[in-house]
C-alpha cells in the first residue's frame, strides 16, 4: 500500500504521516515513511511517502505507484497527480494557497483543478477539512480530519485507525483530534 501526503510546508503533514505509520504497524505490516525536513519546509511544496506491506525496500513512491494521495491543498494535489496509480483515490482538502509565482503575478493559479482531475477519470474525494477542523474545535486538526476521510477509503479497520490516533497524537490534543477524525470518517 503506497500513500502520499502532499501539501505546503507548515501544514502539519508530518503528524498525518505518523498516524499512518502507527496504523500500518498496528496492522502488523512492515512500514517505511520518508519525510522532508529543512529548507523546503519553509512554505514550499512538501511530500511525505508512506509505504507498507510484507516487505518494503525503497521508502520512496514513484510516478504511477500511489494507491492514495492525501492533498492538503488543491494545487499540490494537481502537482502530485502523476504519482497516482490508475484507479487510485485522490483525497483533496479544498483549500488554495497561492505560491510565489502567483503572488508576484508571474503565473495564474490553475482554475477548476478538481473538475480537471475528475474529467481525467480520477477518483477525487473533496473535503473542506478546515470546516471539519473548526467544527471539531481546533483549526490545527485539519490533518487529522483528512486522515479520517482517508481511513474511510482504506482497507484497514476503524479500530486500527483509532488506536493509531492514540499512538501518534499527544494526550492533551487527543480528544479534539478524535472528534476531527470522526467528522472526516463520516464525511
Amino acid at each position, binding site marked *: 500500500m503506497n500513500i502520499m501526503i502532499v501539501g505546503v510546508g507548515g501544514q502539519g503533514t508530518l503528524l498525518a504521516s505518523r498516524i499512518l505509520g502507527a496504523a500500518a504497524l498496528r496492522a502488523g505490516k512492515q512500514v*517505511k515513511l520518508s519525510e522532508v525536513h529543512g529548507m523546503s519546509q*519553509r512554505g514550499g511544496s512538501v511530500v511525505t511517502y508512506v509505504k507498507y506491506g510484507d516487505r518494503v525496500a525503497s521508502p520512496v513512491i*514513484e510516478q504511477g505507484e500511489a494507491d492514495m494521495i492525501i492533498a492538503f491543498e488543491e494545487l499540490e494535489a494537481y502537482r502530485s497527480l*502523476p504519482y497516482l496509480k490508475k484507479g487510485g483515490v485522490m483525497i483533496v482538502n479544498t483549500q488554495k494557497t497561492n505560491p510565489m509565482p502567483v503572488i*508576484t503575478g508571474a503565473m495564474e493559479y490553475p482554475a477548476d483543478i478538481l473538475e480537471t482531475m475528475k474529467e481525467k477519470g480520477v477518483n477525487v474525494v473533496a473535503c473542506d477539512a478546515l470546516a471539519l477542523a473548526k467544527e471539531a474545535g481546533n483549526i490545527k486538526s485539519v490533518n487529522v480530519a483528512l486522515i479520517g476521510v482517508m481511513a474511510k477509503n482504506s482497507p484497514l479497520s476503524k479500530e486500527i485507525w483509532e488506536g493509531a490516533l492514540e499512538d501518534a497524537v499527544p494526550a492533551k490534543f487527543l480528544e479534539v483530534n478524535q472528534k476531527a477524525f470522526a467528522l472526516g470518517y463520516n464525511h
Partner: protein
Amino acid sequence: MKKLMLGNEAIARGAYEAGVNVASSYPGTPSTEITEFVAKYDEIYSEWAPNEKVAVEVASGAAIAGGRALSAMKHVGLNVAADPLFTMSYIGVNGGLVLCVADDPGMHSSQNEQDSRNYAIAAKLPMLEPADSGECRDFMKAAYDISEQFDTPVLMRLTTRVAHSQSEVELFPRQEVPVKAYKKDVAKNVMVPANARPKHVIVEKRMADLVAFNNTSALNKLEMNDTKVGIITAGIAYQYAREACPSASFLKLGMIHPLPEQLIRDFVSKVDVCYVIEELDPVLERQIKAMGLAVRGKEEFTLLGEYSASMIREKLCGSTSEASYSVDETIPVRPPVMCPGCSHRGVFYVLNKLKLAVSGDIGCYSLGCAKPLDSIDSIICMGASISGLHGMEKAQGREFAKKSVAVLGDSTFLHSGITGLIDMVYNKGTSTVIILDNSITGMTGHQNNPANGFTIKGEPAKQVDLEKLCHAVGVDLVTVADPFDVENFEKVVKEHLAAEEPSVIIAQRPCALLKIAGYTGCCEITSDCKNCKMCMRLGCPAISMTENGPKIDATLCNGCGLCTNVCKFGAIVQK
C-alpha cells in the same frame, strides 16, 4: 519492543545503547535530529558547538579522555571539521569515537552534492553506511566496537533518504561503558612530526587489518539469487536496487571503507554480470575496478542526484514505468519562501530598494535571493559573506564598498563569520556587515546557540554579546536596528556605507516562529489602497495580487505589521 524511528533518531538510539558519554555537534540538514534526539537522553552529555570543527574537537577530547563520543554533521560540515578529522586518524582513540556525516544527494537542503565517502579514503578511516533505521541503530553499536578494537575514529555515512525516513527499530537497554582512565601518552596523542611519522606506519597497518576484518564482517550481507546479474551496493541505493531487481544476487556492503577485497572478488566470480550501484561518485566502483575486476557502474548510472527503483529497473531490465495520469499544463512551482512575519524580510526590502551588491551566507536568509526581494549576489559557504565581501572590496576598490554589504545570521556569524570580520578589520577593509540576529538557528529547525543564551537542553547559559564582540575585534561603528522600522533601517544602512571604516549593523528581531516574536491578529487592506503595489515588493506569502488590488490572506498573516510600515498611504492596518 519495536518502534518506528527516523534514521537520525535510530542513530541517537544506537549511540545511547552503545553507552556514549559525550556528544557535540553543529546543526545541519539532514543530520540535525541526531543530536536533538541524543539530547533527550540524560545519560549522555550533549551540546551545540559554534561550528563542526569545534564539535569534532570536543568529541575528540572526550574520546582521548576515555569516554565514548559522538559528533554529527551534514556533508559540508565535515569540510569544516576536516582538520581534526585527518589528525585524529593518526592519534586514534581511547574511548570510541564515531563521527556521523549526512550527505544530501539531490540537494534537498544543501549548496553542493559532495560525496563524503571520499573523506574516508583521504583520511584513512573506516566508514559504515546503514540502509534503514534498524541498521542505523545496529551499525552505531558496531562502530564503537570497531573504534576501540582498531584504535580509530569511525565515520558513519548517511544520506537524506536514510536520515529522514522512518522504519522499525528494535529497542534494547543501554550498555553502560565506564569512562576509561585518562593516561598521558605523548607518543600517541602529541602529533609533532617525530611522533606522527611512526603513527602513519600504524595507520597504514590499521587499514590492512580493517580489510581483513571487513572480509568476514557481519555488517556486509550476501544475498545469492539468480546469478545472471550481481549487484554490489550499499545504503539507500541497496533499497532502490532491491526493489527494482528482487531476483538478482546482491552483495550489500555495510562497511564501505576499506573494502572487503576477498568478499568482493568471490562475489564477482559467482555472477555473470556485476553492477556497482551507488549514488554520486563512483567511490566503490573505482576501487573495485582497481582490483582488476570487470564491473559496470557509471557507464550506466548518473553521477547526479538521487537514484530510484524505476531508474535502476530501466537500466537493468529495459522496462519503463509510466504515470497513469498526467498534468497537461504548466503549473506554478512552489519554492520555499520566507515565512509571513520573517524578521529578514525588512532587511532585504531595504537592500533591494538601495540596489546594493549583497554577499550572502547560509541560512533561511538565503531565500533573499528569490524574487521579488531578489537581493543576494553570491553564496559560497558558512561565514563566507564577510570574508568574500572583503575580497570583493580589495579587488574592486573602496567605491565598491560604498554600494555593497554582507548579510549573515547570528549563528552563522559565530560559526565562522567572526574570523572573516577580524580579517576585514585587521586588513583595513571598510565594508559593511549586517548580522541578522533572530535569536535562533532558524533554517535547521530552531536550535539554540551561543547568541541566544540557551543550551541544547533549553537551560540558560552565558549569552554572547554580539555588539561587544564586534567592538572587541576593532569595529568602532556598530548599530543595533530593528529591520521592521524600514525607514530608520534604510538610514542606518546609508550611514554605514558612507563611513570610511569597517562597520556592523545588528538587525535585531526574533524569528516569527518563536513565541517571543509575540505576533497576534492580522493585517488588513483598507479602502485607502491606491493599488501602488509597494506592499507586493515584500514578497510576503500572505499578500496576493487580485483583480481588485492586493489582498491579505488572514489564515497566513500573523499580524507582524511590516506591510503597514511600507504602505505610503496608511492603507494597511493591524487588527
